[in-house]
């Protein structure tokens, strides 16, 4: 049986673990707030961008390589994970989803080229000897637009060289704090926008300067960047939310453990007191005799 001292030591250990998980939870909550704000700030920009693009691109097809659907031979997958762990199934789920997509594409005889964001994905695929075209790490928390431009440029160049015919991103979409949804979205080429009468009317009356073609040349790559930026921000908010939930659970588990250990400690203490009392009573009886 565990001695009083042993139990006491375990209680202290669990208590200090609890302190750490509690602190991590609070840090994650603060970071989540920031990530969520950035996500919200980004939205009007992204929405305006797609509104303008759909009126621009809707009026003419194949004005730009990013609008042309090529036969699929090779697809690029950009996987977004975190740099750090302790966020429950956040990264594991992404990897599983990615593996599944790769398997599906292979079954269709499509080559897959892989780019990753985050140390977790890089290490995961390195261990499995999966070749990665590119890995961007250390973007968490301090993501700036120029990072996204680097990634975007790399992917667009790769696409324009016709090395890949489609580009997908796989990321955790932020739904609520408790719920993150794995999302696969195609960022290149752009799907032709749904034609609505309203869009047609507005695109008819627009004056373009310089030409529609030139504006498209600038806007389409921009749009790709914006989509990557948006996905990255969603992914970061999801990461912090997942970490917060994981740490919340860990703190609760620690609480439960502490109370069960305390109970065990008290029982053991009582047992030893009883044993001592019995000894004394026994001794007294013996002296009387």
């Amino acid at each position, binding site marked *: 049986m565990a001695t009083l001292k042993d139990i006491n030591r375990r209680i202290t250990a669990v208590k200090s673990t609890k302190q750490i998980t509690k602190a991590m939870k609070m840090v994650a909550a603060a970071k989540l707030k920031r990530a969520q704000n*950035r996500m919200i*700030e*980004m939205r*009007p*920009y992204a929405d*305006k*961008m797609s509104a*303008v693009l759909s009126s*621009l691109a809707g009026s003419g097809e194949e004005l730009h390589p990013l609008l042309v659907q090529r036969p699929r031979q090779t697809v690029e997958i950009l996987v977004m994970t975190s740099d750090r762990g302790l966020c429950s199934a956040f990264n594991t789920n992404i990897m599983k989803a990615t593996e599944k997509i790769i398997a599906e594409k292979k079954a269709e005889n499509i080559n897959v080229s892989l780019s990753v964001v985050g140390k977790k994905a890089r290490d995961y695929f390195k261990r499995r000897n999966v070749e990665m075209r590119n890995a961007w790490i250390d973007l968490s928390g301090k993501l700036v*637009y120029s990072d996204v431009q680097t990634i975007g440029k790399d992917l667009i160049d790769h696409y324009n060289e016709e090395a890949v015919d489609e580009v997908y991103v796989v990321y955790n979409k932020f739904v609520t704090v408790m719920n993150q949804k794995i999302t696969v979205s195609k960022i290149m080429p752009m799907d032709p926008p749904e034609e609505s009468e309203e869009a047609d009317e*507005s695109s008819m*009356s*627009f*004056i*373009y*300067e*310089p030409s529609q073609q*030139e*504006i498209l040349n*600038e*806007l389409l790559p921009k749009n790709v960047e*914006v989509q990557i*930026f948006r996905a990255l921000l969603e992914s970061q908010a999801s990461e912090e939310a997942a970490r917060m939930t994981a740490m919340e659970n860990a703190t609760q588990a620690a609480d439960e453990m502490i109370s069960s250990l305390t109970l065990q400690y008290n029982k053991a203490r009582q047992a030893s007191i009883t044993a001592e009392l019995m000894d004394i009573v026994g001794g007294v009886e013996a002296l009387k005799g």
Partner: protein
Amino acid sequence: MAEKLTLDIVTPYGHVFTEEVDEVIAAGNEGEFGVLPNHISYLTTLKVGMLTYKKGSESGHFFVNWGYAEVGPEKVTILADSAEKSDEIDVTRAQEAIKRAEERLKQAETIDEARATAALDRAIMRVQVSEQHHTR
């Protein structure tokens, strides 16, 4: 008939400015253009430059770093990589950037000239926009 324009400046970091104004002047790729209420729908790219708005006797200036403008009869929407109001520009930083870029351009063979020139343009523009604020 609309008598005012809503000027809306949006960047990836959020809304920078939303207000009703009388006139907007911006640096388009094909040259500077001015917009008054009831302008025809118009879409243009912007270069690194200054955006000025007028509201009654007031006026304000922004430094705009690449973007485009969507103009409608009652609304001007600017989507830019970044936009800074003239009194928020860090002039010392911009001046340092000018020096840096000029030095880099001197050793032109070893560097990406286009990038250095772009950085120089941006920095000079920042200083100019911020001067607008101080002379006003």
